[in-house]
């Protein structure tokens, strides 16, 4: 079991769990919840990137919880940025390093720039800045959006990434309104992939598939230019489940087809993990109810709410051009014209 160091700046793909590097660049002693998958994402993120990395962290759980108070769990250099500023932080940092190296003011070497944001800061407030940064192909950075499906640090309010019907402090379930939040989750990674063709790498991952996630992060950093990775992080506090089940819920999110794992490399879309297995027919999608029933934020769901949830996920798998990625359908008559032969994905009935 080799203890890997990353002095060379090259980041090869990790073959398996036994090849995951031991170096810890995000260490114990942060004030996160029991079972916090976002903290695990942070740990894997810099484990994958290695020490020649600068991390910019926007306001949110991964800022406040990690540095409460006047302390730090980071071994790599780290700087705070504003809630909606991850895109700008990545861009400014990358541009600053680039020009200083070009002018000979600092040593010319590969330095990974990673800016992270939560779903609130990234998919809501900061989406404009992220979009802008993904068009700047001359600057190398990774924007990592860790999605616990709420503004978690302010004690759980809904964001555009909160699932349909979920309870938050802005969407309580009451006697007049059973569901106050009826907006469907905005497709952030798909949107970034579709809208920024000059970004060489966009991916959706989950810490329940740790090696897959770390390899995605490495690929992003190795390919260069502006890149984006979106992780789905089960959150015991906001989702209301016992922390020991965080990994299990991550698996269920993928196995139900709710959260597809994929990457888009230079415009080529590649499904990964169980998502690929589902598309190939080797695995049946589990019913969404198996996932929803484990979480207190859905405890108020009536049958019709579960049915709507299932139907929407089904539609994503049976009708979308690429499930989880591209929501368009192409009319039958144009399929030949547009060279899109949309055969039904193999056996899409749920298990």
């Amino acid at each position: 079991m080799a203890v890997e160091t990353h002095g060379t700046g090259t980041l090869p793909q990790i073959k398996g769990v036994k090849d995951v590097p031991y170096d810890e660049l995000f260490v114990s002693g942060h004030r996160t919840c029991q079972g916090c998958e976002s903290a695990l994402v942070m740990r894997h993120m810099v484990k994958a990137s290695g020490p020649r990395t600068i991390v910019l962290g926007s306001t949110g759980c991964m800022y406040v919880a990690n540095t409460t108070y006047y302390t730090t769990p980071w071994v790599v250099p780290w700087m705070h940025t504003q809630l909606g500023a991850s895109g700008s932080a990545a861009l400014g940092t990358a541009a600053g390093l680039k020009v200083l190296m070009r002018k000979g003011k600092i040593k010319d070497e590969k330095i990974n720039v990673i800016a992270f944001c939560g779903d609130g800061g990234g998919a809501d407030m900061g989406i404009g800045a992220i979009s802008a940064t993904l068009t700047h192909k001359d600057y190398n950075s990774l924007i990592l959006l860790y999605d616990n499906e709420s503004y978690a640090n302010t004690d759980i309010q809904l964001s555009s990434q909160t699932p349909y019907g979920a309870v938050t402090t802005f969407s309580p379930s009451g006697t007049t309104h059973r569901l106050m939040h009826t907006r469907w989750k905005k497709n952030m990674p798909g949107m970034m992939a579709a809208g920024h063709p000059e970004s060489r790498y966009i991916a959706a991952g989950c810490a329940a598939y740790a090696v897959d996630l770390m390899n995605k992060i490495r690929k992003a950093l190795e390919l260069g230019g502006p890149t984006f990775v979106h992780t789905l992080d089960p959150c015991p506090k906001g989702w209301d489940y016992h922390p020991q089940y965080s990994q299990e819920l991550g698996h269920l999110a993928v196995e139900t087809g709710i959260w597809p794992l994929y990457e888009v490399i230079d415009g080529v879309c590649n499904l990964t993990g169980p998502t690929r297995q589902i598309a190939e027919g080797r695995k049946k999608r589990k019913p969404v109810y198996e996932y929803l029933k484990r979480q207190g934020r859905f405890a108020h769901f009536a049958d019709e709410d579960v049915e709507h949830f299932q139907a929407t996920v089904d539609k994503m798998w049976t009708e979308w051009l690429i499930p989880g990625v591209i929501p368009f359908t192409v009319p039958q008559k144009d399929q030949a014209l547009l060279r899109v032969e949309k055969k039904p994905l193999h056996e899409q009935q749920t298990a």
Partner: protein
Amino acid sequence: MASVVVTDPTSITIEIVYRGIFQKTLAQRICRSVVLAARKRGYTGTAFGRYGDSPERNGVPAKYFAVVAINDLELEASMAKYEPSVVDIAVAVDDTLVKGVESWAWYGRQPIWKPVHAGGAVLVTSDKPAAEVLAQTDKAERPYLLGIVPGLASFAGLWVYKDDHTDYRVLGALAKVAPNWVRIEDVKTLIQEQTKDGSAVASAQEGYDRTQLRDVKVGEGTSGHEVLQFEKPGWTAMRPGVIVDARKPGERNPYYKKYGARTLRPVVNFDTCIKCTMCWLDCPDECFEVTPEGHYEVVYEACIGCGICAQVCPVKDCIVMVDELKFEDNDDKWQLWKTDHAAYNAWFEAKSGVSADPKRLAVASSKAENAAPGANPTTAGGED
């Protein structure tokens, strides 16, 4: 034997020390009820959470306060406070909290009785006798009254409250030790009004009747807990530009040790471990050290007791979560397994209640199938 706390005649301050998020609603309910019950006899009061605890984190200790005063004027001294520095009663609604409370960096682990004045009280919800709870409590520096409110710790989440009447029993216990401020009749009237549920009212009475009291003298308790104190630097010593040193490679944050957030801790059967890496890999708190033989041992100073390791471990009963109150120290244990195998396994069995016998071997539990290698595709392409 004292059975009632000594307080200022003009006001009483009560703090509920609780497990963040898991017991947030419980703590709020208790404090609000203390104030509303006192209202029935014309007193006034305030209830508030400690701002620095917010946002709360699952398991990390937090505090909620109730202050009752005879009139508004006397109440003023307790208003606009971040937290009272002195309280009359501290209530721990999870007995593992008596091992000490550390809520964030630079704060250090605090004895549960720290803000309680001499002659005050510490109430603890527990299924254990007072002696066992006291054995895990820091040595008393002032005499106080210890009360055991019978029952297990009541844990829930943010959205779904577990109404197991713990709050009513605690109110009854408070009425027992502070009858001048929390009258049992007022408590019962309030509960009846709010719930119209006779069993809820009965639970308050049960708390009142069954809470076991014990005087604690100076020097009673354990001196085995780590004392951590930090001096906060002044502005001339603080680095300009709001900068702190990074952690060094291999270090864990010395200013914030998370073990105080733990209700359960994992114990490991190294004999049955198959070295699959999953516990180490999936721990959000980076609590596992890799041993020279490729096992993964728990760094108990860092572990927050979330239980993920026990869930993802594919071997039945290789990692078992055990009541934190059963342990006196935070020492790492792999060395013991290496040097005195029998003693370690005896320790494992005593703590976990599970046999360490390697002949009763590794069957992947139904929960653990997700932790099998196939669930972690080794390449991004998904081939496994």
